[in-house]
Structures are given as C-alpha cells and as structure tokens.
C-alpha cells in the first residue's frame, strides 16, 4: 500500500516540472557556468607559473640563470644564492628512490597483472591503497624511527666494508644514518603504490588474444610476457617510472625529516643532502627578513614546478594514449 502512495507522489512530482523553455534556459546557463569552471584547471597551471615567476623576478633579474642554477655557494646573508647543492641533492635522492623502487614495483605489478589470483589482487589492492593513503609526515616518522637507525647500524658498516674503498659513491662519510640513502628508501616506499598501479593499468591494455595465441604455441607464461607483452608496454612502463620520479622530486616533509639538510654537494649515497623542497619548507619563517631571500625560495619553487610539469606532461601523454586503447 505504501508503495502505491510513493509512486503517486513521484508522479505528482513529474507533473509539477517546469515547462520546456525554462528548462532549456537552465540547460544553457548551466553549460556556460560549468564551462567556465572547467577552464579553471588549465588556467590554474598558468596562474601558478606566472605568480611564482613574478615573485621570483627580483632574483632572476639580479643574477644570471647559470649563476643561480650552477652556483655552488648558498649564503643568503651575503647575497650568494647558488642552487647547485640543492638541485644535485634533489636529483640524488630521487635517483636513489627510483633505483630502489623500480625493480620490486615492476615485478610486483607484473605478478598482479599476469599471474595473480583474483583473490590475491583483492588483497593487494587495499594494501596499496592504504600505503598511498599514509600521510607523508608519517612516512617521515617511520624513516626517523626505523630507516635512519637501519642505515646507520646495518647498511653503512656493510657497504663501507665491502664497497666503500673501491667505489666512492658507497663510501661512508656521514656517521649518523641521516642522508641520501635513508631519503631514497623512504621515497621508494612512498612512490611504490603509484608506480605499481600505473604499470598494472598499462598491462591491462594488452589484448588477451595475443597472450592466448602465444601460449597456444607452447610458451611458458614468462616467455609470453617477455616476448609478447613487455615489448608492447615498455613506453607505458617508462611513463609510469617518470611519473614516480616527478612525485619523488617534489616530496617534501618525509624527505626533509631523514635527509640531513646540509647545503653541500653530495658525493656518496651516505652523504647528507638538502633537496629543493626541503629548502623551501625549512626557511619559510625567516625568508622575509633577508633581501632577495623570498625571491630565491620562490624561484626554487618555480624551478621545481617547471621540471615537474614537463615530466608530468610527457608521462601523461604516453599513458593517455595507452589507456585509450583499452
């Protein structure tokens, strides 16, 4: 009985609808309003770039770009703004992070895409989601509590004994555990969920017929993956790694907490580093008191932004092409 009543209310609702012309006006107005809002993301990228450029202008017009980017000395009090230690610090930490993250991520995502049971996938997906949901500052705390002591107590002595004297980038110069390796390990775990999920998506774009054809010829599953699937998805995998690298380049708080923050050009993975994002985050308090300091820091943000936008556009274009194939 109550169901009939409900239907009647609904029918009445239909009858009281506005007439057609006003509905078309509403449609038109909404379309225009939504169109303007939709332009916002595109405009925002321009606005951010321009705003940072304007604020960085004082320093860009005082020093040449090469002096800023390749200058070795950072002494804002003396008017010396060389970004080289920070740029190299960023690159080192990112490179170590990517180097550590890629092999396990690649293997794990191939396993999930090609071998795993539906059940394994159903377990792995929430784990990856949770890993992605953990805030950067918690990763930083973990790095501080677990990774820094681990590097200090286990990895540093080990590397020093076996490789330190022969290969300079493995020599231990910094006896606290804070440094590039600790930052790289934390970064590797942070970007793993992103890399795995993107590579997984890319693998899913390969049509199953190809796999079946290859398997029907009597190959093992790994032979099929290596000879049929992998060659098709290589650009997608590279795009996923570039995406992970751009995420790593900009990561701030977690890296800042474990990397040591000494403005010196690093020479070993056990050295401390001072990446650009950490530089910006650490000095926000005092930057208004020294001339050109805020311009220099916002200039650093601009450098970071431009590099990351380029990385992102490249990888996204490749991935969009892939995912449309599906």
């Amino acid at each position: 009985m109550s169901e009939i009543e409900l239907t009647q209310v609904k029918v009445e609702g239909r009858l009281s609808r506005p007439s057609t012309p006003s509905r078309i006006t509403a449609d038109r107005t909404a379309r225009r309003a939504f169109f303007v809002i939709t332009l916002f993301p595109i405009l925002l990228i321009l606005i951010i770039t321009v705003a940072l450029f304007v604020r960085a202008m004082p320093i860009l017009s005082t020093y040449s770009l090469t002096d800023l980017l390749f200058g070795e000395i950072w002494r804002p009090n003396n008017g010396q703004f060389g970004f080289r230690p920070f740029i190299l610090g960023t690159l080192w930490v990112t490179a170590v992070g990517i180097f550590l993250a890629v092999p396990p991520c690649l293997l794990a995502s191939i396993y999930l895409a090609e071998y795993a049971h539906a059940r394994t996938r159903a377990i792995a997906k929430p784990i990856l989601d949770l890993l992605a949901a953990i805030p950067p500052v918690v990763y930083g705390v973990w790095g501080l509590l677990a990774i820094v002591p681990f590097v200090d107590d286990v990895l540093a002595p080990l590397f020093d004994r076996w490789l330190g004297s022969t290969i300079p980038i493995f020599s231990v110069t910094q006896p606290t555990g804070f440094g590039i390796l600790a930052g790289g390990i934390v970064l590797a775990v942070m970007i793993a969920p992103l890399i795995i999920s993107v590579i997984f998506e890319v693998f899913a774009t390969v049509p199953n017929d190809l796999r079946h054809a290859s398997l029907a010829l009597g190959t093992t599953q790994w032979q099929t993956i290596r000879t049929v699937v992998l060659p098709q998805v290589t650009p997608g995998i590279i795009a996923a790694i570039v995406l992970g690298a751009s995420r790593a380049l900009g990561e701030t708080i977690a890296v800042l907490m474990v990397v040591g923050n000494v403005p010196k050009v690093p020479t070993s993975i056990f050295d401390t580093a001072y990446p650009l994002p950490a530089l910006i985050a650490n000095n926000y308090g005092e930057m208004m008191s020294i001339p050109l300091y805020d311009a220099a820091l916002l200039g650093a943000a601009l450098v970071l932004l431009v590099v990351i936008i380029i990385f992102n556009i490249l990888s996204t274009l490749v991935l969009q092409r892939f995912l449309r194939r599906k």
Partner: protein
Amino acid sequence: MSIKKKYFQRRHIVEFLVKTAMRIALVIVAGALGLILWTIITRGLPSLSWSMVTQIPKGGYYMGKEGGILNAIIGSAYLASGGTLLAILLSLPIALYLKAYLGDSKWGDYVRLALDVLWGIPSIVYGAFGFALMIMLGMRASLLAGIIALALVTLPIMTRAMDEVIRRMPVDLEHAALALGSTKFEVAIQVVTRQMLPGIITGILLAFGRGIGDAASVLFTAGYTDRIPTSLMNPTASLPLAVFFQLGSPYPEVRERGYAAALILTIIVLIVSLGSRLLASRLNKYTVK
C-alpha cells in the same frame, strides 16, 4: 631428445625463478605497510593518552608539560573539510561537464591532462604559490588561506576520481534519459550524479584523507597556533605540522608525544580510507549495472 628435455627443464626453472622473485617483490611491498604500521603503533602507543586528544596545549606543553593536541586535530578537521567542500564546488561541475559535453573529445583530453599535471604538482609548490598570493593580497597566514591551498591540492585528485567512475557509466542509461526528453544538464544532475554516487563519495573521501595528511601546503598558508581557531581569519594548527614540530623538539618526552600524534593521524587516515571503501560498496547496491 635429451637436449630437448634439458631445454624444457630450463625454461620451467626460469618460470619458477621469475615467479618466486615476483612473489618476493609483492611481499616486500606489502611488508613495507606492515613495517610502517608496526613502527608507528609500537612507538606511538606508549605515550598516547586521553589528554592528548581532549586538551589543547597548556603553557610549556612543548617543554614536556601538561596538555594535548586537540587544537591540531580540530584545526586539521577544519582545514580538510573546508578544503574538501571548496574542492567539491569546483570538481563536481568539472566532472559533469567532462561527461556531458566533452566526453572523449580532444578538449576532454586537454582538461584531463591539465588535471593530471595539477595532480603531479607537489604540495610544497601549492604552499609557495599560496604564500605568494597571500603577500600580493596582503593577507596573513589563516584558516582561509590554508583551506584555499588544500582545495587546490585536492581538486585534481577528487575530479579525476569522479571522472573515472562517471566515464564507466552505461551509455544506455544516458540515452534512455535523453530519449525521454530531458536536457543534458538534467541528465547530469539527476541521472549521472545518482548513478555515480559511490564514486563521488570515494573521490571526496580520498581527497579528504589527502587533505588531512598534507603538511607542505599548509606550512606557509595556515600558520600554527595553540588555540582553536574561531574565525576563518585566525591562523590554525594542523595535525601533520603538530607531528613535525614535536619531533623537532630537544625534549625526549615531547618527541615521544610526536610519535603518538603520528599514530593519531595514521588512525584517522586509515579510518577515512577504509570508510570510503565500505561506503562505496554499500552504495553500489543502488546503481544500475
């Protein structure tokens, strides 16, 4: 014959080795989560106390005296919900416009590219941008500035999440509604949003979870204070920064409380993350497959 047999054996050995390596890799990644949770729980739990979540810092809290971090918990809740609300106002129209008018067209791809690029921009850059904007407008660090910065961080995450689900909507449903004489806008508001409610909720909670954990964007924009903000123009504390500042303290007991604060933050984020999953599967019952 024996050569052939040997060959068969070798490739099966390779298959086995590769598979084992992959399983180990998966265990390492999953183990990392376990390791993080284990570290945070075992180090955070001992100093976790009721007063931490029910009191604001009393005088000398950062030197190890009485008080809690209620100001940061409330501040983070304000910041994340304000930022999420602001982001919904923008992202829902964008997602619906992408679906209704742009579809898979070239312009649709441009907008998606822009959103993906925005997603990739690190939150410290949003923080720096917010700071530059604040100087230009003559504003001070405040709840409002923090909310705006967080809305920018979460906007692309939310929009792309909504877009992904809306795209998977059955075309027939849209066609049926259009055939009944509804306009595209009516389809977008009355059919698409209802059908995609689970996805929309997931996107919103995803963005909320990100907002509550993000430190770099609110570092310059929201400031930090021991009081609970009473207006949008007050500066406000946030949980990630509370963790960060307490860890920088020279007093060991304050650092211990920083670990406990990290545990609180982790618990909140995990609840939001698991909650979105649960809610989405609940709501999924009401959609047309």
